[in-house]
């Protein structure tokens, strides 16, 4: 398998993991919204309410930065990272 194909396979793997986490916090948990709201979440808010106000939103921010770092590692591993920084 060529270097490029291996790089793409790893990139695709990372995409799947990222989308799985995204799915859980944007769609998955809201299938059980009513049940989850009975539980007390962080800072004392009802749990589902907290996810809609802060939880899911904050997790998305962290997820994107995590994804960007992982993708950079993959690019470096195959020598595809760009010169210069941002």
């Amino acid at each position: 398998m060529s270097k490029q194909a291996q790089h793409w396979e790893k990139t695709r793997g990372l995409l799947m993991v990222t989308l799985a986490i995204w799915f859980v916090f944007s769609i998955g948990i809201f299938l059980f919204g009513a049940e989850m709201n009975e539980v007390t979440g962080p800072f004392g808010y009802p749990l589902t309410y907290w996810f809609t106000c802060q939880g899911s939103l904050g997790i998305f921010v962290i997820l994107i930065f995590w994804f960007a770092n992982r993708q950079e590692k993959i690019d470096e591993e195959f020598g595809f990272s760009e010169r210069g920084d941002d």
Partner: protein
Amino acid sequence: MIKGNFIDNLPKVYGIYTGGFLAFIIIMAIAEQMGMSAKAIGICFVAFTVAIYAIIGYLSRTAQADAYYVAGRQVPTVFNGMATAADWMSGASFVAMAGGIYFKGYGYMALLVGWTGGYVLVASLLAPYLRKFGCYTVPDFIGTRYGGNLARLLAVIVLTVASFTYVTAQINATGTIASVALDIPFQYAVYVGLISILLCSMLGGMRGVTWTQVAQYIVLIIAYLLPVFWISNKMGAGFFPHFMLADEVSRIAELEAQFGFVKNSAENLKEVPKGLAGITKAHSAVNATPWAFISLALAMMMGTASLPHVMMRYFTTPSVKAARKSVGWSLFFIFLLYSSAPMLATLSKLSLIDPSLPTGIIGKSIAEVQAIDWYQNWNQANLMFVSDFNGNGTLELNEFFMGGKAVVLATPEIAGLPYVISGLVAAGGMAAAMSTADGLILAIANALSHDLYYKIIDPKAETAKRLVVARVLLVVIGFAGATIAAMEIQGILGSVIWAFDFAMSGLFFPLVLGVWWKRANREGAIAGMALGLISGAGYLIWVRNGGSGFLGITQLTFGIFGSAVSLVAMVVVSLITAEPNAATQKMVDEVRVPSGKSILGKQH
């Protein structure tokens, strides 16, 4: 001043700007104490901030195509994040979001989850690859990846339909704010708003828009957060509201149980002015079915990833790596405002309905409420209304009505904050609406000038001529938008949500599959865009005209149907026609590798 050196000095330049703006707020506060009228303060806030944006717009003027279309591809990640956040957060987010949460609770929160979750799709599926591609506009990617003028033209059409739906709402919002702050009739205020918008974008294109959007973000975030923190502290609810309002949230639930949600008769509701609503839904309880919540969130997420005015912001970063990081920063800056909106809604609701607070009006006598100063002001502005339906002389929860905008606009006054805060909020709303309108008008004008005029009609046009065409189109589209806005045919939020649905119906799968599925070809993309847009629009028209809809898809989520049709059409048609040629397949391979030259040259 704006070249080279300017980029290195960005933190300093915007640091001074932020300090200057804070100093301006303090000067206004002192002026208020010395007797400056509320009206004069409002005019100063709006005029001062708009003048600054105009100066930035003028300093960013350019005659180069890559500066005009993609800000020279040198916008650092954090600043591009701020610009995207301002581009993204519209007048509706700023003025109406807290109100939506206040009235609809959980069912509305799907929009918060959708409008943030969409950025995960932007970061992982699209932005870095489109940056590598090196395109100027979104149709530029479609046109080059799939080849042929028809695919390019369809992408331009979808982009125009979606963005134009959105932009009239934004011009409308600038008009509303300008008309209140400057005290002029709405029909003229719309054009004042439009001229302010064009001042930012006409001379500098994307470069001008980028640097004004950063300035606008700073104004809008200060204008949103300062009142939230101040009100929370003043009410004794906690010095950092985001982490400390659990007691307030449970107190609202307690009061809701105590008062109960009494349903008003249709006859009584006739008395209530149009556009005002009462509190009829629980604040923190789950009041929507899982599918109602998830379908709305999903539509907003896929729409986010298809809206061209957001995507084109990531064409301005220096590298592919920077594009990815920049999406993270964008969402961080959006998060600062979005996570504050529910807190504002909580504070606003509690301060009005809790009889044990000095500001609480429920349980007071109707005559007493009608004598309160702020009630009279906002009643006159048609944003508040009380009526004694049951004739007992006391105000009940179901007898109090408010407009959605009042949560952001009136809460500072109810909490007893000085008027300078209301002036600040007006400037923030203006900044939010202007920055989004700028991004949208530029997206449409660039697609028409670059993709329709240069790539399809006159490929030999000189740069100077192309930029003249781009600017003329900018003005024409702006005036068309303002003219429709002046007619006031649709509410602000309804049309914003439609824009997401139109964009996802026509563009989501052609964009995503263009990168992630090599087998996708021209015929498939054409079928996907055309059938997606037609079926989405058809569904909307059907439901608007009394159609029953199916699978719980409403007029707010019609994009789910449109994009499903688009996906099926694109896959089926791609598979029954010939696979893309070797050159196209090689191009897709190159897009997937972050390093190396971009597909399209620096000047194209």
